[in-house]
């Protein structure tokens, strides 16, 4: 039956062409990249994902001599010791690789409130405040050192005169020195935090 033979040959030829073409593509002999017709290579894809660059460093990369060790040591044993540096300063890998890249510093109340504003869903043991009722006119960082937060130290003696006389770091007979963020504060602000003005 000639028509069947011809039809059969036609189909056969198409099938063979398909099989050969597919084999050629799978072996990489013939590829059409725009149509994703190339040998599949999962290992290459896995390597690709592994090789992507990091954007976040880790807090531990801020430590070390020549870097921010002083702040790091202050911070790591503080109540914020589990709060990653990059939560407030942004991703730091670029800066670790090239210190010419500067990172921002965010001391806004808004940032502090994302963690510390009172929310029903937060565990009750987590320190939270109601922002409208907790010194709304002051900046959070004026009392709470970001790298070592916690309430201001209670003074154990009656305040007398100029606090800086004893508590300045440049003092010849230094009493308990002030932490870093206290530099540049006016003297009369000391008592605002340090004399019974705590929640």
């Amino acid at each position, binding site marked *: 039956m000639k028509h069947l033979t011809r039809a059969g040959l036609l189909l056969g030829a198409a099938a*063979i062409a398909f*099989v*050969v073409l*597919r*084999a050629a593509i*799978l*072996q990489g002999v013939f590829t059409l990249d725009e149509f*994703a017709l190339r*040998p*599949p290579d*999962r*290992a290459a*894809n*896995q*390597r*690709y*994902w*592994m*090789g*992507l*660059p*990091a*954007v*976040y460093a*880790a*807090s531990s990369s801020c430590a070390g001599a020549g870097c921010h060790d002083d702040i790091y040591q202050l911070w790591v044993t503080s109540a*914020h010791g*589990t*709060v*990653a540096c*990059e*939560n407030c300063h*942004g*991703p730091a890998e670029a800066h670790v690789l090239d210190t010419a890249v500067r990172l921002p510093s965010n001391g806004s109340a808004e940032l502090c*409130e*994302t*963690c510390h*504003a009172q*929310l*029903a*869903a*937060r*565990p009750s043991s*987590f320190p939270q405040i109601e922002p409208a009722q907790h010194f709304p006119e002051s900046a959070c960082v004026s009392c709470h050192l970001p790298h070592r937060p916690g309430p201001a130290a209670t003074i154990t003696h009656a305040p007398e005169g100029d606090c800086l006389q004893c508590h300045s770091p440049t003092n010849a007979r230094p009493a308990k020195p002030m932490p870093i963020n206290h530099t540049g504060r006016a003297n009369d602000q000391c008592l605002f935090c340090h004399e019974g003005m705590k929640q």
Partner: protein
Amino acid sequence: MARDDEKMAGIDRRGFLKLTGGILGAAGVYAILINVKGTAILDIASGQVAGDYDPSEHYWGFVINSHNCIGCGKCVVACKLENRVPQRDDCNRTWIERYQITDDGQVLVDSPQSGINGFVGKPSPKPSGEEPSIDKAFFVPKLCNGCDNSPCSQVCPVSATYKTKDGIVVVDQERCIGCGYCIQACPYGARYLIPHDADRSPTGNVGVADKCNWCYHRITKGRLPACVEACPVGARVFGDLNDPESAPRKIMRDTRVAVLKPELGTKPKCYYVGLDEGVR
């Protein structure tokens, strides 16, 4: 003479036909074998991948401690930056859900902008129009559950999504055709399609599927996923389930853990501490 001509090259015509037939036949069989072997090429033996990281030595897992989560959203921020996830609200590799259970037992769930800006100043859902009276409330972080029996890789029609030997489900975004089946198949809503007008994309491809891959580029270099680094309260714990002293294994030993939607048989490797009855 004709006979001599035919035999000139040492083969006669019959022999020539036999030879070409044989070669073509062998080539045909070879082509068929290649076709049959086809997608078996896709299986990766261990050690083939790269450098000194051997995927078969690890089996990664997550523990999410919902008791600790404060809903600050830093994990979502970190993830989007680390992985170049599009900034839109409907493109998330991870997100936080807030559960509030009212006095009369209603469960109100919300996730304003996936929790990326936290929940401060975000009003509660008000199904009855009034401020609900909350009896109990908590946060639940969500991410890819790292299913051992993952439905997403099962349904991918072109074998673009696959599970690695160290237990991570990964999308080959150079091969994904963007059919969206995997997104329908994930019971946890962990996958999404990168929109064509996305502002950025993890691999530069758009119109393809994407999902949290537990920061594969970090964990294969001994680092932690970005969300784990960012979490200030230890709600996210990551480690090697093969190692009995790893952080997740320790938690799983010391306390009761659960997984999301266990009845679906997906066998997630993301374990939750502190799941409540209404959490899905």
